[in-house]
């Protein structure tokens, strides 16, 4: 080791702390090497994502080259195993869309309400109880949800579908109806004179209440008359998928609601708004981008889910008629990939095999774009929020 620092200048002790030029270069190289190795390992997820895209696209291209785009996206004729194979996946796309829509209808109102409740309404101790419930819902494997949907929920639906539907309708609509009656009777009596107001409100309340109750009874009557041919249908899948997407929606929108500062809430309270008014008119609008991101993540969860839809959707590749008939079986992209690969596996190289990669590519592209959009929304919201 070459010693080019005079000991007299630095003193005996600090001498050891300084390194020779060679050692310094050595260390710098070492640091550089270490850093680049670290960077490479840290980019493993980037590399993985690139590889996933590359390999899915590589196996999807042959399909589009042989069959073209038009049939795949516009035809509903899905007969992959025929002699004259047809690969019209429109009904499968529609199926995926339908269950996702259904799942969102279940998950978003419930999830956002639960998030509001967790962030603003419940006291701290109860929040600590509610959180594990959500975490457990998120932790339960999807195949367990699928098993429940197939073995418990589907037979129940098939045997007493009408009754189940009416109970569900009452559970959801009755509380809403009560609130609607109160608001309606209140709003309509604002123009009444002071003296007529109270009796007017009671009278109108009874009238509206009667009307809505009549409507509900009619609806229940209609619903309980329905007979459900197969318990494995789009409704079953949507409900279960919605419950599965709930934890995502709740936790992401709760984060968004918590990110809205105390100042906004306090300002609103100071103006005399009640808690519900503060939440609905101030906090939710302020957190809307975060809530939107939560919805997008929920959609991604529902679209990408495999086991539940494979077990509980009925796997019939046709568009329900009319399209909103959720009591018919449908088929989704993920279930098609999972179900058909077993048969297409040993014919690697055929259109039958590559069409599944084309579907996977559509899923992948959708998930990737949704993710980018949600990140963009969150990032922009953060910028606006300061």
């Amino acid at each position, binding site marked *: 080791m070459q010693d080019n620092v005079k000991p007299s200048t630095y003193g005996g002790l600090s001498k050891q702390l300084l390194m020779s030029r060679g050692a310094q270069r050595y260390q710098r190289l070492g640091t550089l090497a270490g*850093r680049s190795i670290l960077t490479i390992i840290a980019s493993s997820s980037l590399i993985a994502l690139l590889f996933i895209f590359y390999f899915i696209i590589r196996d999807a291209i042959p399909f589009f080259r042989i069959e073209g785009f038009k049939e795949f996206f516009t035809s509903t004729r899905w007969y992959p195993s025929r002699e004259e194979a047809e690969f019209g996946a429109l009904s499968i796309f529609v199926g995926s869309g339908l269950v996702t829509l259904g799942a969102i209808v279940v998950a978003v109102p419930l999830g956002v309400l639960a998030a509001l409740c967790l962030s603003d309404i419940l006291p701290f101790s109860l929040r600590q109880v509610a959180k594990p419930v959500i975490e457990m819902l998120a*932790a*339960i494997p999807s195949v367990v949800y699928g098993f429940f949907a197939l*073995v418990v929920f589907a037979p129940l639906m098939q045997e007493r579908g009408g009754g189940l539907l009416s109970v569900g309708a009452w559970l959801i609509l009755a509380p809403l109806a009560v609130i609607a009656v109160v608001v309606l009777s209140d709003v309509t009596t604002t123009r009444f004179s002071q003296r007529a107001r109270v009796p007017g409100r009671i009278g109108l309340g009874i009238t509206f209440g009667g009307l809505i109750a009549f409507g509900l009874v009619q609806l229940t009557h209609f619903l309980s008359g329905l007979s459900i041919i197969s318990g494995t249908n789009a409704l079953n899948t949507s409900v279960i998928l919605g*419950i599965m997407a709930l934890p995502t929606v709740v936790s992401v929108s709760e984060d968004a609601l918590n990110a809205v500062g105390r100042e906004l809430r306090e300002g609103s309270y100071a103006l005399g708004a009640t808690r519900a008014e503060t939440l609905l008119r101030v906090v939710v609008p302020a957190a809307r981008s975060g809530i939107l991101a939560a919805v997008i993540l929920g959609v*991604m969860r529902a*679209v990408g889910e495999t086991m539940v839809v494979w077990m509980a959707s009925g796997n019939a590749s046709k568009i329900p008629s009319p399209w909103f008939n959720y009591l018919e079986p449908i088929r989704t992209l993920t279930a098609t990939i999972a179900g058909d690969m077993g048969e297409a596996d040993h014919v690697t190289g055929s259109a039958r095999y590559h069409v599944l990669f084309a579907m996977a590519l559509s899923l992948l592209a959708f998930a990737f774009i949704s993710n980018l959009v949600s990140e963009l929304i969150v990032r922009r919201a953060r910028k606006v929020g300061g």
Partner: protein
Amino acid sequence: MELQTRKMLDRSFSVIGIIAIVLMAISLLILLGPIFVKGMGAFVFRSTIEHRELMLDKFGRGDRAEIEAEMSAATQARKPVYDIIEEFERELTEKGSGYRRQYRQDFKELKVLVRELLGPFPNQRQPVLIRDQYGQTRWDRATVKLHHILNVEEYDYSDPSQMGVKVLLPRVERFRGTSLEPLFAIFERDAKEMLRPRLTFYMRFLSDESYDAHFFGGIWPELLGTFYLALGAMLFAVPLGIIAAIYLAEYAGESRFVSILRTCISSLAGVPSIVFGLFGLAFFINTMHVSPSKSVLAGSLTLALLVLPTVIRASEEAIHAVPITYKEGSMSLGASKWRTVVTVILPAALPGILTSIIISLGRAAGETAPIIFTAAVSVGKPIALWQTISQPTPALPWNIYNLATEHEAVDEIRHVQYGMVLTLVVLVLLLNMTAIIVRARISKKLRG
């Protein structure tokens, strides 16, 4: 609006919010209730003498002398049944072809049912399939079979405007006036003596191999396969994930590259699990040839990619949660950055990282879609550790799907399906519970 109304609306809004939370709790209960109740049926049930005989034959369990004594008592109770059947067979040959034609179909059906309930006839050759060598091993299944013996289910189509209505007819009506008639009364009276049900705790359900495609035995191959797959996934994901987290938390800063990297991590987390499965098939098996076909190794690698984002994110969070004073203290003592990370920050962040590992372990254990094409088979023996690099394995999530949809006798092995589901759920929830407890400890410690 009036103040009163506004107050009421406020309150009802709170109530609706709480209803939303309660609905979530209820749906969790509705989901877990049947799974727990029926899942326990795989472990605790009333076993028949057939079960004890099977245990003795296949696993060498139980007291041979005692079981044989019990079996001879059961044989005694069954003797009248076989005697009557034999007599009826004689009657059929005696009374000519018209008589035979009249009863042949019904009699054949009855004999199949009796064999399913009590096992092969005494004079019969030992059947090939194990499921035919024994009668009903569970009393709950036996009562179902008994019900089928005593009653015929028919559909009444007399009203053409409606679907067929199920009606039960006593089977004895079909054999009125023949020598077979007393058989049904005997069955009704002596079924318990023939099968001798007794409450059994079958905890070895977890550690027994399955016999004859899950008709008998336990779920050890599936459980073991799940352990291999989940631990294997962690083996790859944890080192990668922790190093990536260290890089992101301590070295990365705020460059463009890092922001792209973060986007990639969240995109990877959003990739549908079935796409991971296809990728695993196309890359690890068809391109890299890590194994000739499906294997635990390929499945673990695929699962590792799936849980990687979770590990990275949670570990990064844990590293960020370490108070900056720790780092400053170490740096001021002259430790290099890397040394600070390894000896000070990582140990302090370890419980948090552990939490992320535990949660990812649960996730990897429960994922089905990625292992369908890369690792899972429906039937198989438990494999040894060194076979994991080349052999596929049964695994709990895949076999739950498989037994619930593709098994030849889905209804007869419900208890096995529920037992598997319960095992998987308990496994995953225990892991999550541990994670929650660890996290609560950390937050208490950080709060002081």
